């Protein structure tokens, strides 16, 4: 089931991009198309991060272990959309000026935190392959991939800090993220039996790995 549904999920994840493409083609991106594309790719980065983070709670609570097979793809789509988001900023806002970007990163806290969130996703995308899991070893790989928590928090703060007055949308992300992180906290704090299951590292529980 997972095997044949994967391409379908892959196509569905391209939906937001296709939507933007269609709007661009039909001229319905609105009066400020660049802003629209920037906001849309930013939104979908956060949505994919939250979906990725919900895989573990959902598969544990609903006892659907197969869900983990989609996790890497969903995480990589979060990375895909954040790269688009960053490229628009790089090309259309900053005209490739690394100097300007650096000045922004240092000066504007919403850019500082957003840029940090973006940087944190790079090693996760790079080490998402089976080869890297083997090379790093399950525990170290997992420790590294906890960066997604920090990255998602950074992403939500980035959004909260850039809105002018209406904080509704970023607060929705903040609430969902809080629930997803609270789940981890609860599992982590709860005393658990020592009998550790033998699992593939990719499927292993964050909470079953002791902190190094």
């Amino acid at each position, binding site marked *: 089931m997972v095997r044949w549904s994967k391409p379908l999920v892959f196509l569905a994840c391209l939906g937001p991009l296709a939507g933007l493409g269609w709007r661009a083609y039909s001229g319905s991106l609105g*009066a*400020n198309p660049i802003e629209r594309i920037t906001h849309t790719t930013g939104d979908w980065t956060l949505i994919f991060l939250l979906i990725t983070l919900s895989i573990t709670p959902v598969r544990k609570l609903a006892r659907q272990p197969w869900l983990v097979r989609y996790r890497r793809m969903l995480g990589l789509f979060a990375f895909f959309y954040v790269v688009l988001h960053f490229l628009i900023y790089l090309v259309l806002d900053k005209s490739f000026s690394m100097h300007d970007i650096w000045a922004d990163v240092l000066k504007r806290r919403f850019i500082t935190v957003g840029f940090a969130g973006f940087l944190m996703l790079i090693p996760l995308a790079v080490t998402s392959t089976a080869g890297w899991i083997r090379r790093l070893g399950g525990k170290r790989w997992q420790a590294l991939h906890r960066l997604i928590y920090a990255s998602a928090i950074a992403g939500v703060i980035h959004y909260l800090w850039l809105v002018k*007055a209406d904080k509704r949308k970023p607060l929705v992300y903040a609430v969902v993220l809080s629930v997803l992180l609270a789940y981890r906290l609860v599992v982590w704090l709860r005393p658990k039996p020592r009998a550790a299951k033998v699992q593939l590292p990719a499927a292993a529980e964050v909470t079953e790995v002791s902190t190094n």
Partner: protein
Amino acid sequence: MLLKKSADIKSSEITPKNLYLNRRRFLAGTAIAGAAALAGLELGEAVSPSTVAHANTKIEGLQKSPFSTTEKITPYKDVTTYNNYYEFSTDKDGPSRLAGNFKTRPWNVTIDGLVQKKQVLDVDSIIKMAPAEERIYRHRCVEGWSIVVPWVGFSLSELIKRAQPTSKAKFVEFTTLLDMKQMPGQRRDVLQWPYVEGLRMDEAMHPLALLCFGMYGEALPNQDGAPLRLVVPWKYGFKSAKAIVRIRFTDSQPRNTWNISAPTEYGFYSNVNPNVDHPRWSQAKERRLGEFFKRPTLMFNGYDQVASLYSGMDLKKNF
């Protein structure tokens, strides 16, 4: 009931057809309002049927203005679907969807405070105070985008002169309509309602400051601030209050809504200034709607003639 009839209402000669029709509506409105006053009813309830869709009503006999820019005018569609008008919605495309049934007639504007002539004026009598001009202005939003709009109106000073402010009047305060029924955005307290803006007296008297009731040669669409708004082209867009119901003259600096919302981010002056950044983002560049790359932002939005209003002032401090 404080409804003043304007003296020239009966003259019908050399009156453009549309304005004439507006007067007819005004007269009808006045009559109903009078009857309502007798019956002790609220004006708004009594004349609810006379909703007039004034957008697309041509304004005839427009005079050209030397203040107009020759830059490319932003398409009408963009200016009417990309609006910051939190009274309706915080989404840019919200006001165009939600302001369709907004009632702009009858519409009274209270003029009070430190003036000789405290009065309540019907908006149509204000519109007739002076010849309508077309002024093609750059409009720069504090968010970093800009447009070029052919506004219709006349200098705010025309109205101020007629109101005869006293020597104590140092500031002018503009208040937007408060009406949660018609303005759904006001049901949420994203900002303090009603929206209030202000200008220093010399700013308000500057010929560039426009009392505006139209754009693109037509009556102002609801989502762009109908029936009466301010356009202060050398300041960020939020200084240009929309749907004005009250103009008050004061001796102390009014607190404007965005300043109340975030005092460190939005000042009273809010002059367009590429050298003074918003605390969270740069103001050095702007995206002109329709253009791909950002363009540099100009001091006072390119309206250098206002510089003398601020000579000797620290514009970093008085942002």
